[in-house]
């Protein structure tokens, strides 16, 4: 908590101080997202005693200071509800240097650049069409099964191919661990030699019939240790290899998104540590603007996760599921959106029947 207070103080100071000449004239803008809403759920799981009522969502603040022509920062803090109270989370602390359009090198804590959703929307509720993220892409402490945050190096850049564009990301970070049955990105040095290595490349069409279409391929590998929260010992470890693709189409009032992740993991403590355990997760989402201010959307998502794989077995959220959802998004103003969403979720490998949810969200950005 002390570190968080220091970091918050640093951000507030940064917000108050001029950074470069242009910013000195007009100050450093503070941006952010916030959302409020209502929800009901038919989830009958014993721990789900809060099943209906009003909700206050995330309150996210971020700054984009320019320290020089080439050096910039991206600092983001998040106030999020957790078990009836608010906690402060340092989302991003990254400092970057832009060598050219081909390479910006970042160092720090950032949103892991796999697929499209995780870096495009993350806590930006107002800029994503739906209310909820796909469950498997959710944050580590909210049901996600992928390391949504990483600490280390991130290189990114782009170049043109005629009217099209190629964008790439590469990252080398502290490997994550499983602590208290959820992923933890190891923000203060790595706890072992399980350095994570990953990247993606995406091709965006800028003209012709495919204008607005983006196709990307991603992958990463790392060793994930499961830490016993009581003793601190390593209970299990596995090598996880993930690869897949993402597609985006945004044009003519259509928004089509899809992401696929294929896991090929190995339990290092198993009798046969070379045996690859296959799992997968994916979603498709389609939205259409029936009016400039009104978007209707639907999404299908599914995860088939092998429970022999220690990586999933040791995560509270590492169970197979299917979910269908549909909703409406009204653009109330330039920076505000009102959304209604209905979801049906089936969790496999439990005795629990499928459950329904209805949600309303009023989201803003500033």
């Amino acid at each position, binding site marked *: 908590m002390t570190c968080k207070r220091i970091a918050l103080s640093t951000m507030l100071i940064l917000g108050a101080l001029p950074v470069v000449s242009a910013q000195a004239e007009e100050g450093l803008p503070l941006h952010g997202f916030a959302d409020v809403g209502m929800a009901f759920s038919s989830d009958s799981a014993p721990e789900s005693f809060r099943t209906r009522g009003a909700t206050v969502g995330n309150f996210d603040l971020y700054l984009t200071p320019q320290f020089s022509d080439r050096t910039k920062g*991206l600092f983001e803090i998040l106030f999020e509800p957790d078990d009836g109270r608010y906690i402060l989370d340092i989302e991003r602390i990254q400092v970057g240097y832009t060598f050219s359009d081909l390479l910006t090198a970042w160092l720090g804590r950032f949103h892991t650049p796999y697929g499209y959703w995780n870096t495009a929307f993350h806590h930006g509720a*107002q800029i994503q069409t739906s209310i909820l993220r796909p469950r498997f892409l959710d944050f580590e402490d909210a049901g996600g099964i992928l390391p949504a945050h990483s600490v280390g190096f991130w290189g990114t850049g782009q170049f043109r191919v005629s009217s099209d564009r190629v964008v790439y990301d590469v990252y080398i970070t502290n490997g994550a661990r499983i602590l208290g049955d959820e992923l933890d990105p190891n923000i203060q040095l790595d706890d072992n030699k399980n350095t994570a290595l990953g990247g993606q490349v995406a091709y965006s069409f800028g003209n012709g019939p495919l204008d607005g279409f983006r196709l990307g391929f991603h992958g990463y590998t790392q060793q994930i240790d499961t830490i016993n929260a009581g003793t601190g010992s390593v209970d299990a470890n596995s090598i996880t290899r993930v690869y897949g693709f993402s597609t985006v189409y945004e044009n003519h009032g259509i928004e089509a998104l899809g992401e696929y992740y294929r896991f090929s993991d190995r339990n290092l403590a198993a009798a046969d540590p070379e045996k690859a355990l296959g799992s997968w997760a994916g979603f498709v989402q389609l939205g259409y603007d029936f009016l400039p201010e009104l978007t209707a959307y639907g999404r299908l998502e599914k995860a088939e996760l092998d429970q022999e794989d220690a990586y999933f077995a040791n995560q509270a959220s590492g169970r197979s599921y299917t979910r269908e959802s549909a909703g409406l998004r009204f653009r109330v103003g330039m920076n505000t959106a009102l959304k209604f969403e209905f979801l049906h979720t089936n969790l496999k490998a439990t005795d629990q029947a499928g459950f329904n949810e209805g949600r309303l969200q009023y989201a803003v950005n500033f």
Partner: protein
Amino acid sequence: MLFLAVLGTGIQARAEIYVIGNPDVTLSSSEIADAFLGEKQIAGSTKLVPVDNKALQKDFLSKVLNMDNVKYNSSWTKKSFRDGIPAPKVKSNDADVIEFVKSTPGAIGYVSSPASGVNTLAKY
């Protein structure tokens, strides 16, 4: 009077837009669009500093970027949030844009008539 008003509207609709840059900036048409969308940050060794002109923004977005203000705003929110690139500052008129572009290395903007002391990069 009505005739003059209609004529004025017609003239405004056909108004040309001049994209100008600090003398150290050279860009092609496609690079201009990229710069105003945050996709191009560097030209040669110069860091680009795009600036919007509130008086001409609607026409500029329509003619050059083929989008409206809502999409432009949304695009910059996403760009800034993902890549840490601040959205362009907004100046209120031609005079303010010209002054900013003249005095800021790497600056590019757009105005309604040719200006001296700056590079005219393109005309739309």
